[in-house]
């Protein structure tokens, strides 16, 4: 430090300090300013050096005229760091910190346990490395978007490979921590092991498919058995006519007509239950889809004495959806309504366009006894059913599917003096 500074400060003035120039020194204004500046810089440099060595207690802020007590700031920082460490180390969720390439800079014990890797082993990997190959591209694309500032957070479900080889499902939430100017600093990931939930969910879907199939069995028997019986009768009549040398074509025409009707029923049912794999979403006219479901069940409604009325608002916007899932939802709602009216009633189905937010609202309004108030809050819960033969998953899955489409579903009783239930499904316009 500075012997050269001594040389630059004029004698007398330099010894006296900035606020007390020596009486004999008469530097030029330029030289005075330079020496003053040098003094200030030297003082600042000395202050910084002391600061770095931990020998400073307070800094005076010339703007606010208040001292900043470093110990308090350090304590606050230490407390904050301590809180973060406690959360990081004790959290049940897996937490990872990532650099801009996605490498796991740090992974908490829960993450290590979840994936079976030590912290050091995790440090050589990215989230993509841990995901199954077919899941990698989606996650990697989202992470890149976050690094370049196109998004701040993303949440996906993906499969990871445990070090031991097992596949685990995780719900992954990743968020960016940025500098003051918005530049990417690092990312925080939180992983929740949802393997068990996924297994239960898949079991529920299978259960619901079975239950829906069971509820449709009686209808199937009726729809297929009746034309088959009619066809058999006509074939017998045709055989007799042929034996007596008469024209049998009239009976054969009727038999053929009934068999075609059977084929149509089977074909539509096949479409309705074709859920081997999630279908790609497509733009669908909800009026057309609803009409399909209602038409298929029209005769059942008539047999049960339920008057079905259908009122679709013309020109509703097409909705981006998985048509199979949506058919299952509407079929489930329709069958629920029919089960609520075993002795007949009215079922009114409508569609309407909504503006704010933009979408389509579908209402199923029945004239059954309604849902008891104490039951109403629970009807979307899994395994909740008031029927002895109910699986209690129909409305639960309906809500799940609707939510996956960005919509919502709700049920309420019709206001007095009416009775019955209104189930409303709302789906957003793409």
């Amino acid at each position: 430090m500075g012997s050269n500074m001594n040389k630059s400060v004029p004698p007398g003035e330099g010894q006296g300090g900035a606020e007390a120039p020596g009486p004999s020194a008469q530097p030029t204004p330029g030289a005075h300013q330079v020496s003053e500046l040098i003094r200030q810089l030297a003082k600042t440099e000395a202050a910084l050096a002391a600061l770095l060595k931990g020998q400073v207690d307070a800094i005076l802020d010339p703007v606010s005229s208040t001292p900043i007590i470093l110990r308090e700031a350090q304590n606050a920082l230490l407390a904050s760091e301590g809180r973060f460490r406690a959360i990081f180390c004790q959290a049940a969720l897996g937490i990872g910190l990532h650099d801009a390439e996605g490498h796991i800079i740090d992974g908490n014990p829960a993450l290590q346990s979840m994936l079976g890797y030590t912290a050091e082993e995790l440090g050589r990997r990215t989230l993509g490395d841990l995901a199954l190959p077919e899941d990698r591209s989606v996650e990697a694309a989202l992470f890149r978007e976050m690094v370049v500032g196109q998004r701040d957070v993303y949440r996906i479900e993906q499969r990871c490979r445990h070090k031991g080889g097992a596949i685990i499902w995780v719900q992954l939430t990743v968020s960016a921590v940025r500098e003051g100017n918005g530049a990417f600093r690092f990312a925080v990931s939180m992983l929740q092991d949802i393997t068990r939930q996924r297994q239960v969910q898949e079991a529920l879907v299978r259960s619901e498919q079975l239950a829906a199939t069971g509820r449709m069995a009686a209808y199937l028997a009726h729809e297929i058995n009746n034309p088959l019986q009619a066809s058999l009768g006509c074939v017998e009549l045709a055989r007799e006519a042929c034996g007596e040398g008469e024209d049998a074509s009239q009976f054969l025409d009727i038999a053929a007509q009934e068999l075609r009707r059977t084929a149509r029923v089977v074909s539509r049912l096949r479409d309705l239950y074709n859920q081997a794999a999630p279908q790609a979403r497509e733009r669908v006219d909800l009026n057309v889809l609803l009409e399909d479901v209602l038409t298929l069940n029209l005769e059942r409604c008539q047999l049960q004495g339920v008057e079905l009325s259908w009122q679709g608002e013309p020109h509703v916007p097409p909705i981006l959806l998985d048509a199979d899932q949506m058919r299952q939802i509407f079929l489930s709602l329709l069958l629920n309504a029919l089960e609520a009216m075993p002795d007949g009633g009215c079922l009114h189905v409508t569609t309407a366009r909504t503006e704010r937010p933009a979408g389509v609202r579908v209402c199923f309004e029945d004239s059954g006894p309604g849902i008891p108030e104490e039951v109403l809050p629970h009807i979307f819960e899994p395994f909740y059913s008031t029927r002895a033969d109910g699986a209690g998953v129909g409305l639960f899955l309906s809500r799940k599917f609707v939510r996956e489409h960005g919509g919502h579903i709700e049920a309420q009783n019709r206001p007095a003096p009416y009775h019955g239930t209104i189930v409303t499904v709302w789906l957003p316009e793409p």
Partner: protein
Amino acid sequence: MGHATHFEPGSNRTERSELFVTNETINVDRPNGTGKRIALRLYVAGNAPNSVRAMRNLKAICDDYLPDGDYDLEIVDVLEEPRRALRDGILVTPMLVKLTPPRAWIIGDLSDTHGVLQALRLNGQQHE
């Protein structure tokens, strides 16, 4: 006068650490020998650790090297008088200012006795 801040008796020297002093005021070739009283002003931040250490160390230096009491010492607590400290050009605490020429600013806890003596130009004046 500045806010009075207590010195604790039986002061212990804290561990040795670097002395931070503005350079232009150090002139080891001109030992203090003028016989004039030395005016010192120590800016501290309440009882913060470095400030307490600086007060202890300065007290010990004064006792050892200025036993005749040829000094005036004012303690200014910046928590009490922040505006005054700012007017005096104080950036951080603890900071010792030697007011009598040649002026010196010494930043830190004053645990580097040799450096403080050089800055205060009290070399070779220890009285046992």
